[in-house]
């Protein structure tokens, strides 16, 4: 297992699905952080480039490239190795520039809300004796609740891993714990003019605007690669440059030593483990839309039931195929709706629930590249 820290050398562009060609639209927007597909593509491309095989031959699935392909997968196929992430992270360096410490930040869980007046953060919990009726999408779901006379509102932001683990053990974050987007990255716009390639001069009426993500100093992306089965020929070197995202923007990567995501012990001390909540670190796709058709694929116990869920608006994820061949044709991938990172599901069973550690998504291939990463926590009724 290796953890890799990737930081931009300039700015990053991770485009949404909106077509952006001269004349179609004048504005391209960036997502941040990128979704796992983008990052796995960048890492595989880097490994491929470092392996020394002919990229053209590889794209054409030439048998001469089979040895590399067996380790990183053919174009369009999922990689045979696993990834976790990407997570937004801050690195701390020593005076020589060596990374000493990495602090990942995770999206504020969707069941954390804030009082409009007292600005206190609260963790919602299922309300057992529901007095309300509502158009719940599934029978038996309970409202998530906090007993407060405050008007509670949705909030966004990021938590470091210590605060997140405390949250999973039912400790609410404070205002100081919640990191705002702008402390991790900024969005900036750049203007450009479409060039007429025939006459090499700006084309009239083709002014465009690109919104880019500029991570703050020492902010980057943290990704885990399960490279234990990779031969040394196709492993990432200790550090180097790679390109990532739209316009192949430059990035610097560093393979970290001795880092790992902290685990949350289960069941936590003092809890019987019959009530478990799943917090999604990365987006996940489910065949049932907002919910999986069979949670038993990951959570082992009879009579398991979903008690409640906190999910923000669905995240559409698609992307484009960037190889030259695909660019000539239908290069836009199919777009599906995912539950966003930060979603939380509450489960209850008659006996302790066990999580099998697999990515929680109905797409096994996507689970292997970083989707459906979860942490587990405990809960009690409001």
């Amino acid at each position, binding site marked *: 297992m290796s953890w890799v820290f990737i930081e931009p050398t300039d700015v990053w562009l991770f485009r949404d699905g*909106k077509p952006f*060609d001269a004349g179609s639209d004048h504005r391209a927007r960036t997502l941040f952080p990128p979704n796992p597909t983008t990052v796995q593509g960048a890492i595989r491309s880097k490994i491929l480039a470092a392996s020394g095989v002919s990229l053209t031959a590889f794209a054409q699935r030439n048998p001469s490239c089979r040895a590399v392909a067996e380790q990183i997968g053919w174009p369009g196929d999922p990689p045979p190795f696993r990834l976790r992430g990407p997570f937004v992270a801050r690195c701390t360096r020593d005076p020589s520039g060596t990374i000493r410490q990495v602090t990942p930040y995770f999206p504020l869980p969707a069941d954390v809300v804030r009082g409009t007046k007292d600005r206190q953060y609260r963790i919602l919990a299922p309300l057992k004796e529901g007095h*309300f009726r509502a158009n719940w999408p599934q029978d038996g779901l309970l409202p*998530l609740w906090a007993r*407060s*006379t405050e008007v509670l509102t949705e909030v966004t932001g990021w938590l470091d891993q210590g605060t997140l683990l405390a949250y999973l053990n039912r400790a609410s974050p404070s205002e100081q714990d919640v990191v705002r987007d702008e402390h991790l990255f*900024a969005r900036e716009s750049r203007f450009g003019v479409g060039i007429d390639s025939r006459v090499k001069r700006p084309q009239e009426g083709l002014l465009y605007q690109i919104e880019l993500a500029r991570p703050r100093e020492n902010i980057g992306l943290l990704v885990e690669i399960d490279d234990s089965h990779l031969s040394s020929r196709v492993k990432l070197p200790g550090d180097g440059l790679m390109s990532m995202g739209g316009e192949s923007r430059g990035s610097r990567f560093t393979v970290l030593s001795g880092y790992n995501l902290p685990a949350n012990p289960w069941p936590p001390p003092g809890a019987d483990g019959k009530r478990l909540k799943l917090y999604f670190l990365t987006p996940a796709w489910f065949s049932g839309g907002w919910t999986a058709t069979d949670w038993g694929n990951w959570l082992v116990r009879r009579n398991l039931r979903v008690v409640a*869920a906190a*999910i923000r608006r669905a995240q559409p994820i*698609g992307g484009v195929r960037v190889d030259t061949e695909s660019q000539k044709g239908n290069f836009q991938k199919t777009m599906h709706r995912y539950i966003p990172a930060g979603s939380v599901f509450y489960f209850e069973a008659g006996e302790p629930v066990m999580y099998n550690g697999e990515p929680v998504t109905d797409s096994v291939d996507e689970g292997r590249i970083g989707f459906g990463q979860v942490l587990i926590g405990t809960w009690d009724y409001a």
Partner: protein
Amino acid sequence: MTNEEFWALKIVALLHDPPGKALDLGGHEPRAFATIERIIGPRLFLQLFGEPAARLQRGQDFERLEQNSPNYQRLKRADAMASAMDRTAFPARVKIESRHYVPTACVVHPLSGKQRLLGSIPRQFCDAQGRYDQQAADDYQVARLRDAEQLAQGQPDLRRAYLRLWRGLPLTSPDVDAVLLPPDTRIVDHSLWQHLDATAAVLSALPRPALLVFSVGPVQSFIAEARRTQDLWMGSYLLSYLTWSGIRTLVEEVGPDTVLYPALRGQPLVDHWLHCTFCSPLWEDAPQADDLAVATFPNKFVALLSYCRATELATAAAAAVRQAWIEIADKVKQSFPGGPQAGDWETIWRRQVEAKDWPEIYWSVLPWPDTDQYAERSDEAEAAITLDETYLGSPPSFRKTLNVYKQAWRKGINSGTLYGRLHALAEAGFTARKGLRDFLHAPLLQGQTRQLGEDGEKCTVSGVRSALRPDGARHRDGVRRYWQGVAQRLRNTEGRYHEVKPDGSERLSAIVAIKRFAQRDYFEDAIGLQGGFPSTTQVTAAPFKAAVLQKLTDAALAAALCKHLEGLKAVRFPTLSEQAARLSLPHLTRRYERLPSGLSDLGWEFLRFDADVLYPSTFTREGLEREYRLTVSEAQAAGLAESCRKLIRAARDAGIDPPVTYYAVLLMDGDRMGAWLAGEGLPRFQDVFHPDAPSLFQQLPDYTSSWKPIIESSRPLSAALHNSISLALSNFALECVRQVVEDCYVGRVVYAGGDDLLALLPAEYVLAAARDLRALYSGQAGVEVGADGWRVNPDFSGDHTGFLQVGDQVLLTMGPTATASVGIVIAHHQAPLDGVLAAAREAEKAAKEVYRRNAICVYALKRSGEALRVGGRWHYRGRDLVAQVEQIRSLFSQGLVSSKFAYEVYDRTRAFSRRVYDPIGNRWQSAGPPWGAWAAMIHRLVKRHWQGDRDLQKAEANRITKLLAFLTVGLSRHRYHWEQQWWQHHDREPDPLDEDYAPQPGPVELGKWLLLARFLETGGEE
């Protein structure tokens, strides 16, 4: 209960207190019941109450009725609950008889607590000596009840009669003050109509009322998916219309009174429904096409329903919303210029349009205590507060207050007394439901492991859905060719030339296509919604167009215009549809209508062209080919550019500035609406009493122990208060916004509903428009109504009651204690609209968060990519910020100071942004500039850049220095407050990232205002 009985009882509730009840509290009930009997008929009256109205003449007759008639008991219970919901019932021992009320008749603004005398009431209902004239009061009530009979007359059923009474009765009063009369002469902060609506709603909700909270969405993403102003308008309009479709279900089933929010009376879509839905004309006054053109419904509503029907009605409302959506979509599909087609096209259409999770609908229902279970009304209240304590953990103070009420007057307490807490609980339940944004995929087909997603080429507007395409056109080129064909077909249809770009660069999903075509394909037939929405270029150049129309009598100008239009016609330059030309900017239409007959044709031809034709840069051979599919020679293009320049020159000679290239998007939002709706910051009880009432309370033996704490405490949240807020917002949206934006300042309203407003305006007018809107929002303005429309005189320092006098109308506004913030973006007319909208939302957020509400924040997005953010409070010590900025602007416009002045001041501001060390707090904090040096610097720069009369230089430098120094003091406060707050929450200095979201020191903000004033004055040109 039969349907007939249901509506008959609603009529009883609506008329149980006749109009003008406060004028004659003694004899109103027999009179009202006699009228009710005539309206619903003696048979039904007897069936409901067991005896004829003729036997109900005295108080004891009604006491007998209360013992014998379950329906009368029900009415009394509804009346008591509505009274408790509206005003917290007070004991009959404290009484202000009509003879005492009428000579000093007044009402109090519910939010500000400011009193307004009803001057015409004593004039009409007192004799020459100022004594109460009972006969006049009786005559008034009799006349209004006769009006009620006439309104209900001839209706084929009681539901229609009820709807007609509900809408028409408040309008029958010949006197505006009488409409404001309260139902209770002691607590005078709400009107009789609010109480009657509440009574009717409670009556149909008994024995167990429930609050339904319902929303339709998504809002922000749906509206933001807009490439054109037409998409923006229709995005807002569709949401507003769909919400109304849900509300309509409730209105049809249980009456409009059940909808507590938004206020429905006077809503154009409601009036249209009343006018059209019924075979006989139910409501004579059909709304005008331009009234219907503004989206006025917020996406959320709250209703009081019977718990046993609440779920059924909520489900029916959700089905109605979906049905309305499908109806609109079907119409668009039938008329679609490139289909409907089978195969991929049909699959995409159905997947996107018929998705079960589209539109997003969330609702929740909170049941109140079942009144049948409690013999004592106060036990109902006990049950309600237990609910509150159980679910919201309310502090003991609520129970303590209830106990004080109970102790003071047990009879007046019921679950309606806890309306505010029950409403908070219902909102919390709704928020909990919305915390799960569930979504579905299309059903999994046989053999598939994954549902069909949005495949192939994506929509160029939304970016997340497939663009409509025929079979086999999965690649971009194929989809582009298909949409070129769509555009081609549209070009062949009169007036639809502009709807899709001809080069295939617009490739739309079904959802965006519905937004693009719904107005013409559905709303025009369904509700008579006409006209397109002006393009950003139209809005940008509107002042130029208006000025040209005004001065068209200038022969040289008319000749230049005629020549230019001839050239355009010669190359068959596309024109707007007749409706779009007439309706998209009402101000221009008015100007056109005033043209002398000889110039009328020329003026009309001018209106038919989009404002693109006023910019010489439009006329290049490549541009005309790309944008309009016009094949012209270089010479023709150059000729058009030249005739355009000549027109601009002729206009300049006539004193008209050339068309600028920047326009503005204005987003306004009421401040602290959540707090208002939660009942925070309300006046004390004694402040909303009639002035005589406090002394009457003081005479009660238990005044000190029981009543004093109550009347000195804040008035609790009431249904009437919610209704007042809703009415004030509705008055603002329906009566004020269009007058200001469209009539005074040549803009166009996109959305005005709830506390939100979105409008497009010419950049040069946007500051004044924003200030006028803000002043009208809180009623801090005078309004002169003239032949040319309104003239608004904002006045933030005056003593305003919150009742706005407009001609012979009195409008309830949010009042002087309420505020609103505005975000403005000034952008180039060709800048991408979605980016401009995103910036407008940021500006509005900054007005609230950076400038701490009651503020304006402007983002000027220059085409070079540079952005300027500046903001401030609407006024500092009553002095209007915008007026001061306009004064600065006039220095540039009159050429009194050189344009470099703004830059020079700004360049020096950093040097004057001091920080001083606070040894007690052990921190650095901003201090005002060294005022003497700052003033001297400004004075010196004014003198240096002075270009006006030399004799005035010194005096003007003094005046301008004073103006700018005063403004600097005000602007410096934002930074001071921000730093105070910073240190409350942090133990470190703000870093540069924090500074990005902070107000700048006063001198810097002032420098930016100067830059903005200059930017606006030059029309954005450097």
